[in-house]
Structures are given as C-alpha cells and as structure tokens.
C-alpha cells in the first residue's frame, strides 16, 4: 500500500555541518517506527525538516501522496503531522486547558473556541491531565509537561505523530504509563514515529527501528535484527551494551 510519509534523498546542512545526509525512508499507515542514534545524529533535525521548521537542502518529502517540502509548519500541522518537542515547549502563561484548546482550534478543525475547548477537555482526559486543566502550564512537573505535549499533539487530530524523546527524564513508573498512552494512541490508527534513547522503550513499542549516525541512515529494519547489527553496535550501542543485551537475552 502507499506509504503515509515518504522521504527521498533528504539532505540538510547547517553551515559546514551536514546534519542529514541523503536520507531515504518511508512510513506505512498505522506503523510504529523507532528512530535511534547518538546525540547529534540528526534525529531532531529530521523531525524539524519533516515539520517544515527547517527546509531540506536536497531531496523531497511527501505526505499521503503530496509533497510538503515547501510548506510552512502551520500548513503541515493542519495536514495532519504532529510532533512533540524534545525540549518541551508549552505556552507557559496559558492554562493547560488553553494550551490544548489552541491546538484543537488551529489545526484540530474545531469550528469555534467553545468547541475547541470541549475537544481539548476530552484530550486532557485521555492523557490523564483532566485534574490539572486549570493550572498554568509552567506549573506542571516534567512528566506533566510531557503529557501536555502529547495532549496538544493529539488535539491536532494527526495522521502522523512524531514523539521526540517523550520519555527522556521520566522515571520507570512514569515511562510505563507513557508507554500505555502511546499504545492506546497507536490503537486509534495513528502512525507513530518514536525518537528514543531508551532501548527499553524502543524494544517494547516499535515494530521497526531506524538508526541515524552522523546524519546518515545506517540501519532500517525489525528491532531485534537492527539491534544486533554490527555497524549499529559500533556506531551507537557500543560493545558493552551489546554484551549486556546478549546477557539479558533481549
């Protein structure tokens, strides 16, 4: 079937530095794909290029058939691509509810603010933030802020949701909750692109993993296969990790 998102030959440079080097990949509808790689590999940049925050220097990006390479971020958002920020970016002076309402209003297709507010309330419920609705976003804990990011993204009614290290900084318990949430999002048929440092998360949720290294895509395939791949071990996981994994029998 036709891929939801298709990236062909995308390259992105920042002055000298090549952050993305001729990337090719495709996401099928409903898939959950993990994206891993060392710090500075280009993961966030890839997200930024897809969402139009940065313009790709070369290559093309198509979303459900149409090229979005030249679109502005707000158009892309309205087309159905949502993302969370690695460094969470709420509107600090607004309440949690207002934050999500805004999302529902501008890309969630809500007809009126009132309608958007109802939708928002529902999304907060879903993300377990209902009781925090009245707080200013700045008052949330890190975990709370990450959930808010999720709620906002959902409010966009996206076809594709890109999660940039939503679990970073969460403790095991919080991570488990987050994973359930992600799972239930996936059940709605939303395609998920999962950027992670935490192998545990990747191995538990993703069906497929893509590895970036120095802006190059060095592996793309089923989780187990990729994680045992020589180059990946070399570049990212490191020998010791591999050994431990072998030991733990993952």
């Amino acid at each position, binding site marked *: 079937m036709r891929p939801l998102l298709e990236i062909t030959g995308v390259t992105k440079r920042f002055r*000298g530095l090549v952050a993305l080097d001729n990337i090719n990949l495709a996401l099928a509808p409903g898939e959950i794909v993990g994206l891993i790689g*060392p*710090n*500075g590999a280009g993961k966030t940049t890839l997200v930024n290029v897809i969402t139009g925050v940065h313009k790709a220097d070369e290559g093309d990006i198509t979303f459900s058939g149409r090229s979005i390479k030249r679109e502005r971020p707000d158009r892309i958002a309205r087309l159905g691509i949502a993302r969370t920020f690695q460094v969470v970016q709420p509107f600090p002076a607004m309440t949690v509810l207002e934050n999500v309402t805004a999302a529902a209003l501008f890309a969630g297709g809500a007809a009126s603010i009132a309608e958007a507010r109802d939708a928002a309330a529902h999304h907060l419920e879903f993300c377990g933030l209902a009781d925090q609705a009245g707080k200013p976003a700045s*008052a949330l*804990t*890190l975990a709370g802020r990450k959930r808010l990011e999720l709620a906002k993204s959902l409010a966009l009614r996206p076809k594709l949701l890109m999660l940039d*290290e939503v679990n*970073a*900084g*969460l*403790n*095991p318990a919080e*991570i488990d909750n987050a994973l359930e949430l992600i799972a239930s999002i996936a059940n709605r048929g939303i395609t998920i692109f999962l950027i992670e*440092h*935490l*192998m*545990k*998360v990747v191995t538990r949720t993703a069906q497929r993993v893509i590895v970036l290294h*120095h802006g190059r895509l060095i592996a793309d395939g089923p989780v187990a296969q990729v994680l045992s791949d020589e180059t990946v071990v*070399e*570049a990212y996981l*490191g*020998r*010791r*990790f591999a050994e*431990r*994994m072998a*030991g*733990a029998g993952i």
Partner: protein
Amino acid sequence: MSGILLDVQGLEVAYGDVQVVWSADLVVRHGTTTALIGSNGAGKSTLLRALSGLLRPLRGSIVIGGRDLAGASPRDFVDNGIAHVPEGRRLFTGLSVHDNLLLGAYRRQDGKAAIRADLERMYDLFPRLAERRRQDATTMSGGEQQMCAIARGLMAAPRLLLIDELSLGLAPAVVDQLVETLHRVRADGASLLVVEQDVGIALELADHVYIMDQGRTVRNGPSDVIAADSSILAAYMGT
C-alpha cells in the same frame, strides 16, 4: 585510601519552585575519578550546577577542603579549586581557542608565567587545539569543542574538574581519545567528577561510580563492583 576533597551531604536543588534534586550525598577523594550516571533528567547536571555555584541549593552542605561552600558564588567555587565543564561545552562565539583558554585562567593570581606554562601544557595534552589556536572556538567540530572546553576548565588549575556529558555527541573514537587524556590529567594530580550517559565509558573511566535516579543518589561503589552487578544497571539505566 586518599583524603576527601569534596563532601556533599543531603543536597537539595530546585529551579524556582521545581525541585529537581531531592537528596544527593557524594564524596570525591583526592586524585580519583568519580563518575555520576543516571537516566535523562535524573538531576545530574543540576547537581553539578549546584557544585559550581551556578545554582543555590535549598538545603545541604558542599564541603571542599574543610569549607562549606553551599550557596557561595561561582567565583568562590573557582577560587576554591573547582572548575565546571558544562553540558554542551558553552564555548564563547567570537573568541579564538586561545582566548577561550585564557579566560579559563580568569581568576588565577599566580602570574603570567604560570598561566603561559599551563597553556603550553594544554596544547600538548590536546595537539588538535594547538593547530587551531586562532580559530573561532565555536566553529570547530564537536569533539574539538569538547577538548577545548575541558582544556578551558583545566586552565583554572582546579583541584577538582567537573565534566557534564563527557561523550555527548562525540564519535566513539574521539571518546576513547578523551578517556586517555583524562587518565593523564588525573595522573597530573587533579581529581575528576564526570557525568556520563554511556555507562560503559563511565565504568571504564572512573574509580568510583554514583548512580542518580529521580534526583537522588541511590547507589554507589567502586566501578568494578557496580559493573559486576547488571541488575543495578537494568534497574536504573533502562538497559
């Protein structure tokens, strides 16, 4: 066992009303390398910021060479022999490598000669920097920048060097090189407290390891002991 250089007791740190470090106890001994590991957001950087005076702790003590510096200014920490290589290097745009290094010695009173001597020492510790001493520091590759940042820290002639995210964004090869250098640095008498994402590297580099989780120092022990106990790592490092 050599004497205690840094003794941290019951430290609590917050950003405004967001408390992040709930209880940190940690000891660094003269001439040793201590590693601090833990998942993202565990509070490692925050702890380090408190240990260099960037953040004022809510509670707890930071005793260095017998003096409690909790709440003192970054200058006092520098003057008491603590240098901090921050997460993300934070080199100064518009200044050459040379100038960045000289700034490292900003608080030193022991005269130009000594400083110049140390400069030369840095340049042979990190030959790559010698080649690029006139280049705008922030235009160098990540690895070179990390070297420059560490060298800048060492220029303060510290008794204890704090390094945050040593290997962040660096190619494994570069990391190995850095590890070598840091062994030399310690051999020259300075002690190190290193925050490191990559457990493997941490274990290889350090004599003693602390594990931090949700703002608490939960475990510590000699590297080999920790390394042997994979359950600990499984529990706290999500691996």
